[in-house]
């Protein structure tokens, strides 16, 4: 159990390709931090720098208060789970899990106890004498976690551990990682490109793009108050709708005018804009699909044409386009619709949508920053 502190960490590859720019982050003891971002954003590189598998070009990395810049991975007291499991194919599951303990010259009896205990927790006791090739993807992943678990390391690093699994198994393993975290009660750094994993697992999420940290915050913070357009678009599925519009103020109250329909910015957001004395003018308005509702024609209703209706089971994803051709996605819980309305939601149908002020996000179209930052 330990804290991890990264100060001005940089990674520059040959030919001056900068993978990570001035990375500053303090991961607290027993915290579960998730690095998330698209491919090539530097999240795995940062994790590998913490592990000691990549040299850092500048800055310092501390684990439990000790600068580990020049320490070999084996001397950092970390454990790591790899994306492709990285199990030793010529060893049995038992030998795989025991490998690190044997290198530490732990007595054989203790190795047996620790391996069997880890196997029990992970439910792989029956496979201990098998070779990795005789295991399924999920079982291999458990062995990989077992191999990391058995070392009693200060920090647990996981590099996209679920991305090789199918969707069903991924959900199951995600829940198991949450349980494992409760059992191990140690510091976790987890890398993923899947925002759902990030949201469900992390105490805090670090969203990265092109080697820069975009935002660090709890899942609620990054969802409810995205710092910029990138974070707003990356977190949430389906992704947030963006509408180029005008922010106006009348009699001290803020309004937006998406597609010519004047909507008041009421509630908390209105208050916040007033407190910030936000500048009026062109903005990018963000609205999450789940915050848009179907409505009847009226003053606050935006007329749209339905293009595609995706039936997801508990909800419908309605892909609509407005009169000026802007495409939007609306997420509607099936339970909120009567049978007659659902029947009418076919391609080409005319629908009306609206949304409240409290669910709006306002971004500067130039800087892409949230106006309420």
């Amino acid at each position, binding site marked *: 159990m330990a804290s991890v502190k990264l100060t001005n960490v940089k990674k520059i590859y040959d030919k001056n390709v900068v993978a990570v720019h001035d990375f500053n982050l303090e991961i607290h003891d027993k915290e579960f931090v998730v690095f998330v971002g698209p491919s090539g954003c530097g999240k795995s590189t940062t994790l590998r720098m913490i592990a000691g598998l990549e040299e850092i070009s500048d800055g310092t990395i501390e684990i439990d208060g000790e600068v580990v810049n020049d320490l070999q991975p084996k001397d950092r007291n*970390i454990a790591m789970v790899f994306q492709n499991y*990285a199990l*030793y194919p010529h060893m049995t599951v038992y030998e795989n899990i025991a490998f690190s303990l044997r290198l530490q010259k732990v007595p054989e009896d203790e190795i047996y106890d620790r391996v069997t205990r880890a196997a029990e927790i992970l439910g792989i006791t029956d496979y201990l004498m098998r070779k990795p090739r005789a295991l399924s993807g999920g079982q291999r992943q458990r062995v990989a976690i077992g191999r990391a678990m058995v070392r009693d390391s200060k920090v647990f690093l996981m590099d996209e551990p679920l991305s090789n699994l199918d969707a069903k198994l991924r959900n199951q393993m995600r829940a198991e990682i949450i349980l494992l975290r409760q059992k191990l009660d140690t510091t976790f750094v987890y890398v993923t490109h899947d925002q759902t994993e990030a949201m469900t697992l992390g105490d805090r999420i670090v969203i990265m793009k092109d080697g820069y940290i975009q935002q660090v915050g709890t899942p609620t913070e990054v969802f409810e108050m995205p710092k910029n357009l990138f974070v707003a678009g990356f977190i949430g599925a389906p992704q947030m709708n963006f509408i180029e519009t005008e922010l106006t103020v009348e009699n001290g109250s803020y309004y937006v005018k998406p597609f010519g329909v004047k909507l008041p910015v009421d509630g908390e957001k209105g208050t916040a804009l007033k407190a910030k004395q936000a500048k009026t003018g062109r903005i990018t308005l963000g609205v999450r699909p789940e915050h848009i509702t179907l409505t009847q024609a009226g003053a606050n209703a935006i007329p749209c044409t339905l293009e595609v209706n995706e039936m997801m089971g508990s909800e419908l994803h309605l892909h609509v386009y407005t009169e000026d051709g802007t495409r939007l996605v609306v997420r509607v819980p099936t339970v909120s619709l009567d049978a007659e309305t659902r029947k009418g939601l076919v391609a080409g149908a005319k629908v009306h949508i609206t949304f409240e002020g409290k669910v709006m996000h306002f971004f500067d179209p130039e800087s892409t920053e949230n106006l309420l930052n």
Partner: protein
Amino acid sequence: MNEKKKIRRHMGLRASSAISNSVIHVLLVIISIIWLIPFVCIVLQSFRLELSGPVGYVIPKKWGFDNYVALLGRSDFRQWYINTFIIALVNAALQTVIVLCMSYALSRFRFKMRGALMRLMMVLGLFPGMLTMIILYRVLKDLGLTEANAVPGLILVYVASSGMGYYVSKGFFDTIPKSLDEAARVDGATRMQVLFKIILPLAKPIVIYTILTAFMAPWGDYVFARYISFENPVGMNVAVGMYKWLTLDQISSNYTMFCAGGVIVAIPVTILFLCLQRYYVEGVTGGAVKG
């Protein structure tokens, strides 16, 4: 109708592929027989007792092990055999270590001039080794490693250039995921432990391939061995020593013994190959195809 046509066409294809298969197999059998004839002749001649020179027939009239007994009774032959064995064994050990370390380093480490080094070695490898013979002889002579001391001299020659034969094993190592090295390093292994505990057990075919080729090269070498031993029987290997028995003045009395010597020379290599054939094929194809 169409289905029937398809089936007929399929049957026709099957028949023609069966014919071409048979032709290929018959051809291969004929080639194998032609290829095996000299070896069979040598084995048969080695058991011939009636005459010790070359004769115009293959199957001996009188059979026996006398040639082998006489051969093994000769101290010069034993000396050549031991020389060859020492050279091949030491070379196999040293060359294997050097080649595997070199291949691992080139496969796993990224350092300045790595690409240039690999290209340089490839270009150097294109030159025939014979070109270096004269200068090598001079150097070895100055070091006192020729004639009676040809054995360490030859070992030096074979081992010195061994790092250049890294291609096949590097190709094989490249196919082993780097994440295994990384996992082992995180698990607490040093680079050396990663190589010996993780990579080499996974690269068994290529290790065996390397050992075999490193053993074989000096085992059958004639040109370098002849040059460096320079007619001194103490420093000769078995190929150079036995070749003397084929000169005009000796062939009539030593030909059958030469054949027996050939069989004895072939035995260790044949056993090695039979035992390790599976790995050898895996090593060659693994390195060449996947690399």
